[in-house]
């Protein structure tokens, strides 16, 4: 079923179907094993229990579904999770980093499509991990690929389209985005067969505000001259926010923070690098792992976790006021290049100063026009600022590891040379 948020009518009326795809248990086992291996990074810091976190959560969601709870999946970070949580549904982000799913997707989608889209589609089709558990998927029309993807998803899932304006002005917000969020709330109420009360929404907003607080706290640690956690560890932990229960996640991060606060850093000898551009989503840590052979990643200004950074500030705790504050947070500070006049530049410049960045690596997924065109602007600004910049154009495949490694290694050598002995 394919419909626009707030409307009843189905968009596509003619019959066509997707070929049948059978789930591949081998791939699922492989991914879970890979997680157990990678999560040892976190266990090294002293926080246990991360190895089985995915399998445990999948079982938990399945049980909750049996008891009648609905799962609302979404791509990108324009959908207010607070609303989904307040309506007693489970928010689940289905942005995927799995390489094996791309083969599945390429049976249907063309080759020249962003790997993230292919991977998310393939994983949902082949019922991998938690990707198939959604009752509804909400797709924002951020890029062309996601827009058209809605048609494909609708053949086996209910899809709601959230129409994003192209400009991030206050007028566009009031005219086009805020009314959408209001009707999204009504759609969610219909889905969960329960009205969202004012108190529930307030509680939900306050809970997710804690999530922002704890995220910022953790980020502050990375500003130190000797960061106690590297990029891989940090991104692994943050990846769990895609599927994990919010309250448990906050508790885990608080625990982690306590362990890291007093930890001695082992990354002080490395130059500090910031990653920007297309999001890096587990298990596509290819670039991250290569970079961290030579440097330490102290910040990612990417849409993978940037929505955890800005808080929802409610001035007017009436129902309408809360929805407006929510919608504002998910729209105005967004750094997605799908918006014209995107002002990620200021954020990058500020972070260079805050985190004492030595160099920036621009991660660009192949076939992404938006990030490709955005590069020129960022190169211009960073050249003026004098911060070294390296562009890596890649996808999920492993074939170009050596090529990336040569570039990254040379880049880090350049940085080291510029800033003396590190």
């Amino acid at each position, binding site marked *: 079923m394919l419909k626009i948020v707030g409307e009843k009518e189905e968009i596509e009326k003619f019959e066509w179907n997707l070929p049948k795809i059978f789930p591949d248990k081998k791939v699922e086992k492989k991914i879970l094993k890979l997680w157990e291996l990678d999560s040892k990074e976190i266990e090294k810091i002293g926080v246990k229990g991360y190895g089985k976190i995915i399998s445990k959560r999948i079982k938990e969601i399945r049980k909750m579904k049996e008891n009648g709870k609905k799962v609302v999946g979404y791509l990108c970070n324009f959908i207010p999770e607070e609303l989904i949580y307040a309506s007693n549904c489970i928010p689940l982000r289905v942005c995927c980093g799995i390489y094996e799913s791309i083969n599945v997707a390429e049976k249907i989608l063309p080759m020249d499509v962003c790997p993230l889209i292919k991977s998310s589609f393939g994983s949902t089709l082949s019922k991998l991990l938690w990707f198939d558990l959604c009752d509804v998927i909400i797709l924002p029309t951020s890029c062309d690929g996601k827009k058209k993807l809605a048609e494909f998803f609708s053949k086996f899932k209910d899809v709601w389209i959230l129409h994003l304006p192209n400009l991030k002005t206050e007028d566009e917000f009031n005219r086009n985005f805020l009314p959408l969020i209001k009707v999204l709330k009504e759609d969610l109420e219909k889905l969960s067969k329960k009205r969202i009360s004012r108190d529930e929404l307030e509680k939900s907003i306050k809970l997710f505000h804690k999530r922002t607080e704890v995220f910022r706290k953790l980020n502050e640690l990375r500003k130190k001259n000797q960061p106690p956690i590297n990029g891989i560890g940090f991104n692994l932990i943050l990846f769990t926010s895609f599927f994990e229960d919010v309250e448990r996640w906050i508790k885990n991060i608080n625990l982690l923070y306590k362990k890291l606060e007093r930890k001695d850093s082992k990354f002080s000898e490395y130059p500090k690098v910031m990653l920007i551009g297309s999001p890096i989503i587990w298990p596509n840590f290819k670039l991250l792992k290569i970079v961290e052979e030579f440097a330490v990643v102290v910040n990612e200004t990417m849409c993978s976790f940037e929505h955890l950074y800005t808080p929802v500030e409610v001035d007017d705790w009436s129902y309408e006021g809360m929805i407006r504050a929510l919608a504002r947070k998910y729209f105005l500070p967004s750094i997605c290049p799908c918006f014209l006049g995107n002002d990620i530049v200021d954020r990058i410049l500020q972070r260079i100063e805050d985190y004492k960045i030595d160099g920036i690596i621009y991660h660009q997924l192949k076939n992404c026009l938006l990030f490709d065109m955005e590069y020129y602007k960022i190169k211009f600004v960073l050249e003026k600022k004098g911060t070294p910049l390296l562009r890596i154009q890649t996808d999920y495949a492993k074939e170009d590891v*050596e*090529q990336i490694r*040569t570039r990254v*290694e*040379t880049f880090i*050598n*350049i940085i080291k*040379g510029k800033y003396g002995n590190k």
Partner: protein
Amino acid sequence: MLTNNNFITAGIDVGSVATKVVILKNGKIVGKSLTLTKADPFHAATFALKKALKEARLHKNNINFIVATGYGRRAIEFANETVTEIICNAKAANFLGSPFGKIGTIIDLGGQDSKAILLDNDGKVERFVMNDKCSAGTGRFLEVMARTLELKLDEFGKLSLKSKNPIKINSTCTIFAETEIISLIAQKKKVEDMIAGLHFSIAEKLVNLASQIGIKDVIFFDGGGAKNVGIKVALEKMLGKKVYVPPFPEYVVALGAALIGVEKC
């Protein structure tokens, strides 16, 4: 410091086509050798090192430091350190210098890739760009064309200089350019004109690549492909600047590796 010391270092450049070794003593090259990498970088490196040692009349134990570079550098387990070929190239270029002045841009035309490096005022790498995805701007392009025209690669460059009317090759892809050459042969066009056109094609690709990081005087042209005088002339014509090709251009990166070895001693 690099020239008057008693250190003996070896630089091993494991390229995708050929492995080059340079043995350096007191700032002078005392031995060098080249062998095809084929499918076994480790074996190629060992073999090339042996050959170079023989020429230098030295034993492996005499070497104080071995630096491996190039695409297959990580396979060389007996190397003391690995460094990327861009850094090595810059090091060697600075060491060799050019008769025209300070080196600003390095263009490296390899067997299966090409690179451009911009140096800052201190001779350090400021920016770099690599083409290792498309064969059209690499040595492979000329190899394919030489085979199509049934000529030896060595004569290729000199023949191109004889042309008075170079024919523009429209295809950017190696395979389709080959098809274009075949149709030109059928049209009974002059060989030297076709070859000159091909050289301009490569020069154009190199200039496009280097423009991404900025072309600054003086231009230092190295890599195996720099042995081709036709490309050098085409580059000079296209850029309107003098291009310097060092002696033994294919060994420049290996030399750079050996120089880094001296620093690490």
